[in-house]
């Protein structure tokens, strides 16, 4: 089975559409969404509707901190993120908000865990930024693979049976075998606001028969996504950073 995984779409309709088209062309069988559907971008309604439609057909979706902030507030957010959330509240319908509110913090199937930020304390929204924070998740895991997002920079951490934790910077389009002899923590890049210096949208395909994970990079119509952010009156920086991928 080929499982497509999308994280941090952030209301970027162009990036999401490009990734979904790419996944369809790769004949994926299953869709998993790892949270942060809204915030930053100009198309929250379209993105939530798209994710909801996939969930109604059996896809898995978990909740991210930006989805959470629609209801709980923006105390811990940067100013531009908080302004985007305030704007987003006015864009979402009550049923869209109900959908976001009802999403779980994590989900698991077979020997995989899906979560937005981290495994050890998902509701605290701490970032996985280094071997130390990654090892907390790897130790807390009870599955062979955990997949998350949140930081917008792709990384692949793994822990051997002797407890050695290491990281790897994945290269787009390369099938990485996930050996069963260790645990894997895959941090996906962002669909809608990449921050690793590559402006292309990032998603991943997990092949559970071949036991490989492939980070995909998909170019999308940044001009249109950025134009809509500016037209909506959102901070210009949110449009500019899409070009830099930072």
């Amino acid at each position, binding site marked *: 089975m080929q499982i497509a995984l999308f994280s941090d779409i952030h209301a970027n309709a162009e990036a999401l559409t490009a990734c979904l088209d790419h996944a369809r062309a790769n004949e994926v069988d299953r869709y998993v969404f790892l949270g942060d559907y809204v915030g930053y971008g100009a198309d929250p309604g379209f993105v939530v509707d798209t994710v909801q439609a996939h969930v109604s057909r059996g896809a898995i979706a978990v909740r991210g901190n930006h989805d959470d902030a629609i209801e709980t507030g923006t105390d811990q957010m940067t100013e531009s993120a908080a302004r985007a959330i305030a704007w987003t509240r006015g864009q979402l319908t009550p049923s869209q908000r109900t959908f976001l509110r009802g999403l779980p913090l994590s989900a698991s199937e077979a*020997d995989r865990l899906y979560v937005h930020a981290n495994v050890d304390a998902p509701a605290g929204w701490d970032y996985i930024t280094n071997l130390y924070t990654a090892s907390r998740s790897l130790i807390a*895991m*009870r*599955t*062979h693979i955990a997949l998350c997002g949140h930081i917008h920079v792709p990384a*692949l951490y*793994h822990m*051997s*049976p*002797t*407890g*050695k*934790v*290491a990281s*790897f910077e994945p*290269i787009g389009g*390369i099938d*990485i*075998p996930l*050996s*069963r*002899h*260790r*645990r894997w923590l895959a941090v996906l890049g962002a669909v809608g606001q990449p921050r690793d210096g590559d402006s292309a949208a990032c998603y991943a395909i997990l092949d559970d028969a071949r036991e490989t994970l492939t980070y995909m990079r998909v170019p999308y119509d940044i001009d249109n996504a950025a134009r809509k952010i500016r037209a909506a009156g959102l901070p210009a920086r949110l449009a500019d950073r899409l070009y830099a991928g930072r």
Partner: protein
Amino acid sequence: METFLTDAAPAPTPVHDVRRLRVGETIDGFHLEEALPPGGMASFWRVTHPDFALPLIMKVPLLRPGEDPITIVGYEMERMILPRLHGPHVPRFIAAGPFEQPYIVMEFISGTSVKELIAETPLAPGRVAAIGVQIAFALHDIHRQHVIHLDLKPSNVFLRSGEDAVLIDYGLAHHELLPDLIAEEMDEPVGTGPYVAPEQVLRDRTDPRSDIFALGVILYFLATGERPFGEPQRAAEWRWRLWRDPFPPRAWNPNILPWLQEIILHCLEVDPERRYATAAQLAFDLQHPSEVALTARAERIARDGIITVALRRFRASRGSAPRPRKRVSGVLTRAPIVVAAVDLAGDGALADAVRASAERILAADPSARLACVNVLKIARLAIDPWEDEQGRNRHLQRMIELKHWARSLLVDPARLTYHVLEATDPGAALVDYARNNNVDHLVLGARRTSAVRRHLGSTSAHVVAQAPCTVTVVRTGRASGAEAPEA
């Protein structure tokens, strides 16, 4: 082994206990025919399968409780890397077992292992070079596939009957696009004592030139019957090669010619920057002994004096600045073999333009090497003794002209070689030359179009269509009325 994985994965349910495998058993369709001598980390079986006609071998890692973690990590690495390698220089990957029952099935390589040749050492220089060329070709092939072997030694090299070298055992290898599980698992350098490169001793696993060092050790061994750094048992002794240079090969065997010593010591340089940049460049020298640029290395007959060695040891003890991380593909693309095919009989302006173009390519890549090639067109291959002498004169004359052509190149002469090819078909000769020498970039001039050339096809068109590398076709500027109008 402590296993946190038992609560994650389904409880292991070994169908067959690998420690009690028996001839006659069948695992996932593979029938165990014969037990082969076991290695340190795995047992080996000749197997057959109804779907595969080729001879097969099954490698079963010895995963026992308390086993050295290198065993399992080595198995994980080989399982990742072997299926991604292709071509005549690696055993074909067939299948791998599931978590509960690890094994790898691959093509059984029939042929001689280089280890078997050790009994015959010292080998004649020509034979050492011939074997070295095949191993260097194999190395260049895996390097181009993003893999560094990092455990190259005689027992891991097989020579197929058709001469191709096959490199086996990727348990310690590095793939530049995949996680390096060895680097993270092991606190000590890994490898095989006599063959590890100095940078491997310092735990750098990302330099393809480490394999060139190991090949240098093999060539030294074959040529002299001695190992340049002995057989150190403890990893601490591996460090000695950072400052203690080996006896020059000619100190062991005076029959070794200067060019071969030059090549071997060039491979064994402590600083990878001073070794051959690519295995293709090494193969090139081994194939063209008369073109090897001889340095002080070729003449050396004794090891460095105690003061020089003590100084090097002192510097090594102070450590060195961390070296920038390399990528296999980066090292390869910066060190191309470039060929300038020069037509000396024709238009001087065109030969000048080819030289200018080659010079620009060499300026961009400081590790690039330039082979200056001229094709001496002959009517047929068989010639009588009188013509033979005349032919030699023509050959020599062309060589003189070719060197004259190259004299104004502003390039270190050590980066240049000269070759006059005799052929009935210049285009085919250039294509063969490019293929046999792993050429990356071929520069040649195209003469102006003529009716004959349009009908029969030009040399440049043939080379562009057939050469296995990048081809730059140089034309001289369009002088007024120079371009023949279309008839």
